[in-house]
């Protein structure tokens, strides 16, 4: 099965109105070529799941500036003034989720769990509308899984089967996002032959990956 495709072919999986999960932390570990291709295609009404909205000229921040997104589910928007502006002018819906909760909600979706119980957010506005569950005398919030139609992942080294190695701090949300989408597209910084990544160094197994672009 040949998963290696051109960026144009990969974009056929991305349609208006989709929920798209994107790896990266303030743009580090984000597939910039795929981000730019989505802008060039003019995809609209994306619901974005990402750690943050990065910067106006970096990562998913460019989607905010170019109005490709109508809703963002993120933990932080402070580095992208355009996100705040569009939120205040009601052009963009911003759903702020604590970072650890965001990670676990995505993991839950990928791991077949009905949700996770976390103490984070108890006693804050985050608990509004959520079920509170007491376990052994301590309160937790039930946080629900967060699944995407498509995940866009950045791999430092990717083999042609789709096994991924992430270098240093680029791993962040990529491993989690790769488990929680119908279609997973990885952008390889370096594409290698099958077998060139030691199986013990694989951080995302190939079984999660549908499409590989360079």
């Amino acid at each position, binding site marked *: 099965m040949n998963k290696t495709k051109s960026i144009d072919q990969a974009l056929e999986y991305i349609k208006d109105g989709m929920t798209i999960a994107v790896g990266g*932390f*303030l*743009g*580090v*570990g984000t597939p910039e070529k795929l981000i730019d291709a989505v802008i060039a295609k003019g995809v609209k009404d994306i619901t974005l799941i990402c*750690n*943050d909205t990065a*910067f106006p000229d970096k990562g998913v921040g460019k989607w905010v500036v170019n109005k490709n997104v109508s809703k963002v589910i*993120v*933990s*932080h*928007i*402070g*580095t992208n003034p355009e996100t*705040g502006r569009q*939120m205040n002018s009601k052009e963009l819906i*911003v759903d*702020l989720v*604590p*970072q*650890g*909760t*965001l*990670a*676990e909600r995505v*993991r839950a979706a990928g791991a077949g769990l009905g949700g996770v119980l*976390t*103490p*984070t*957010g*108890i*006693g*804050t*506005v*985050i608990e509004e509308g959520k079920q509170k569950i007491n376990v052994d005398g301590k309160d937790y919030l039930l946080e629900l899984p967060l699944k995407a139609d498509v995940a866009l992942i950045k791999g*430092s080294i990717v083999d042609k089967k789709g096994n991924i190695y*992430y*270098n*240093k*701090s*680029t*791993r*962040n*949300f*990529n*491993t*989690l996002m790769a488990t929680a989408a119908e279609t997973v597209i990885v952008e390889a910084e370096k594409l290698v032959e099958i077998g060139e990544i030691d199986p013990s160094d694989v*951080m995302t197994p190939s079984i999660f990956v549908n499409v590989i672009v360079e």
Partner: protein
Amino acid sequence: MIQDKDRKREVIVKRVAKELKDGDLVNLGIGMPTLVANYIPEGVDILLQSENGFVGLGPTPKPGEEDKDIVNAGAQPASHVTGAAYFDSGMSFAIIRGGHLDVTVLGALQVDQQGNLANWMIPGKMVPGMGGAMDLVVGAKKVIVAMEHTAKGEPKILKQCTLPLTAAGQVDMIVTEMGVLNVTPKGLVLTEIAPETELGEVIAMTEAEIIVADDLKVMEV
């Protein structure tokens, strides 16, 4: 009381650094808390966590020596120390929430005498988002707030926070340029007072009720 901005910061971060014990895993928030790393006492070996995905955060690299794949949680170029380890955000927050992080040091917009902390938004004005702060404050074994005692002359240590909370009842210690306050079941106890500072000044600049410790000490900085 101390007036000079740089001196205030120095007093705060030096005092916070003294709280760190050999072997501690520590997360330092963006801004002033980051400076604590410059004052770790001799013989104290700590590991710094960077919540974007590693333990063993090292010093800022020299210009020209940056690695594009190593950044801190504020996206600034960073480095790792020998013995560091990288992981994903799931592991990072398992460390934070799971009771594996000894100390977190963060700034605050407001903190109150119940140990409530507000540091992630001012409704209608500034909504950067909580990032990892809510998890850090809930999960760390010890939560230290490091901040200037007042903002534009207005108290930040209150009877009750008025801004949306980051977490309820999680703060253990507040270190400012005026002193050290511990959050206890009895209330806020002033255990140390800064040099060049009068007790009356601390009380005047604090809205919360302060219990002065019987053995009130001068802050060692």
